[in-house]
């Protein structure tokens, strides 16, 4: 895997590739959902790509992240395979969670991705725990928790930041302020102007950065990571951003109008970074088109992988409840294995 960074030409191209991959993955997922190919909920990350990609590029491969219900971007930014992600969205056995998680629970613990999460505000305590493992084991790993502006109103988010600050846990709390929690604007949910101001209460650094600028996010997280590994504890980074799509697919969005979206579209994070690379002479228009078609091919392959993958067998519903074999569950598993899962 090519590492993404803001300094080298290859690193910059990789940053652009990841942002494009998220955009293409989520555009495709949105379409597949509309076509009825994907069950459940899908929350798209379109418009917010610079946040996940900038943040993960500043992390080490071994670092941990926790994600949210809007997790596809975090997964791709952390280096997960779009094909296995797509298979998970389809509920297939070859998905990251063998079809048991779906869009809201994609995880790859070995890759440090501790899970998308269907519970708003649940990730930060988990990240504090991963950072505690890193601290106890004395390794240089850091845990970064993505959470939404809406999540910042949750008690457990504050408990986690306080714990991390008190124990100097090597952690970063990254608030993706996309201006809304579902349909409620951020100013109706919080009394502070900038969510990063809450850092003061924990006596930790807090910054608000332009979340449409991948370099700005990268730099803030790189700084936070330095503090974390030096034993100086957590940093709160707020990235101002915007989601271009509805809260979930199918949301008819009565809470905002097209004009607001247009203002933010002018600041499209992918367009902005592309312009920057072209202006710097690192990228050509042709080079960009080439990159884009590579990404489109990757996502097309991801979809055909997902489509042709097998559904889990019914008896797999009984797998993975516990590490131990539990008779209460085994009796159903045995039955499902012998009769194809038709009866209980």
């Amino acid at each position, binding site marked *: 895997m090519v590492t993404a960074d803001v300094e080298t030409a290859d690193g910059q191209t990789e940053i652009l590739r990841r942002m494009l991959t998220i955009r293409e993955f989520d555009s495709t997922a949105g379409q597949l959902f509309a076509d009825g190919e994907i069950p459940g909920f899908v929350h798209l990350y379109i418009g917010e790509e610079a946040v996940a990609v900038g943040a993960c590029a500043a992390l080490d491969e071994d670092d*941990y992240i*926790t994600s949210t219900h809007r997790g596809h971007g975090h997964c791709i930014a952390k280096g997960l395979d779009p094909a296995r992600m797509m298979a998970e969205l389809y509920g297939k056995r070859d*998905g*990251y*969670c*063998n*079809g*048991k*998680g779906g869009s809201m*629970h994609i*995880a*790859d*613990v*070995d890759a440090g991705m*501790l*899970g998308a*999460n*269907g*519970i708003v505000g*649940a990730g*930060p*305590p*988990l*990240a*504090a*725990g*991963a*950072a*505690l*493992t*890193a601290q*106890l*084991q004395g390794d240089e790993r850091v*845990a970064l928790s993505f959470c939404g502006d809406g999540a910042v109103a949750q*008690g*457990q988010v504050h*408990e*986690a930041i*306080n*714990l991390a600050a*008190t124990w100097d846990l090597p952690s970063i709390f990254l608030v993706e302020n996309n201006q809304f929690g579902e349909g409620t604007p951020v100013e109706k949910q919080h009394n502070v102007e900038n969510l990063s101001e809450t850092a003061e209460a924990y006596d930790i650094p807090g910054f608000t950065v332009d979340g449409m600028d991948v370099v700005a996010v990268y730099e803030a997280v790189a700084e936070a990571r330095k503090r974390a590994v030096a034993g100086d504890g957590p940093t709160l980074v707020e990235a101002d951003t915007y989601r271009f799509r509805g809260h979930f697919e199918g949301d008819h969005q009565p809470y905002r109008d097209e004009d607001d979206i247009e203002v933010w579209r002018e600041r499209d994070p992918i367009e902005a970074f592309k312009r920057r690379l072209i202006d710097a002479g690192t990228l050509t228009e042709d080079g960009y088109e080439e990159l884009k078609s590579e990404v489109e091919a990757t996502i097309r392959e991801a979809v055909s992988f997902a489509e042709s993958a097998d559904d889990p067998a019914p008896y797999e519903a009984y*797998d*993975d*409840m*516990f*590490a*131990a074999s*539990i*008779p*209460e569950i085994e009796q159903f598993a045995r039955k499902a294995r012998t009769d194809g899962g038709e009866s209980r």
Partner: protein
Amino acid sequence: MSTEARPGAGTPGTETMTVREAIRAALREEMERDDRVFLMGEDVATFGGVFDVSDGLLDEFGDERIRDTPISEAGFTGAGVGAAATGSRPVIEIMFSDFLGVPMEQIMNQMAKMRYMFGGKTDMPVTVRTTEGGGMGAASQHSGTVHTWFAHFPGLLAVTPGTPAAAKGLLKSAIRSDDPVFFFENKMIYEQEGDVPTDPDFTIPLGEAHVEREGDDVTVVATQRLVGESLSAADELDGEVSVEVIDLRSLYPLDTDTLVESVEKTGRLVVADESPLSYGVHAEVMARINDRAFFSLDAPMQRVGVPDTHIPFSPALEAEVLPDADDVRAAVENVT
């Protein structure tokens, strides 16, 4: 060897310990055995735990591994889940089980579901220790028995020791388990003594009940404090009714085989557990017997528990609702 060692009363390879000492010994042995194990909770270190269970462990293991936390049950329980998912083996203490509503989100949606939702890609080796039970005038918010919630919720294992040996053996198994285990300590039996094996490899498998006293006429399946109460009732009835007393030990998984074997012999069942009666451990044990030993029953199954109230403060009221040996005895007499 625990520092409180007294040779066991008779049984070789054992020493006499209280439940409190047995729990402390289990923590100590498992922390010595595996440096990924650590204990965290409110006032577990300097204070030694509000019931003195972890007293002295701070000096032995230091404040990294015996960690006082902020009063932040959601935060530190969640951190326990995150730590367990990344290779640590935390033991979390929730001071009173009545406080479990606070971290419930992390328990029900993260701890219990993570392995399953992730398709088995993570272990969840976390142990949650907490105290239950009335009897000390602590009133409704510090006296509850809530273990059925956790035994009921998929993805969690739950144990309820009734003796020092069970406490030690089950806690050691809980800490060694790669699944989340809830370990419920009844606060009225911390001082209860019994013989406990000294072998550091002594463990009690999760999901095994234990016959504490053999009998032929009635099976009493009990948990926690009611194990001792049931043994007293059996003593009182000695000569009139032969009572078999079983410490259930594990609520989930539940050792149906041992219960069935006993009821096939006695034909009568009393279930004694300090949970509220409705939808409790009692009902589950009866359902298992109904499934597997219905035709061995000679009398309706009986249950002894708290009559669906909270635990009141006044000693006069508390005594009214808390089950004891007299209630077990009455239930036995009801079916003999």
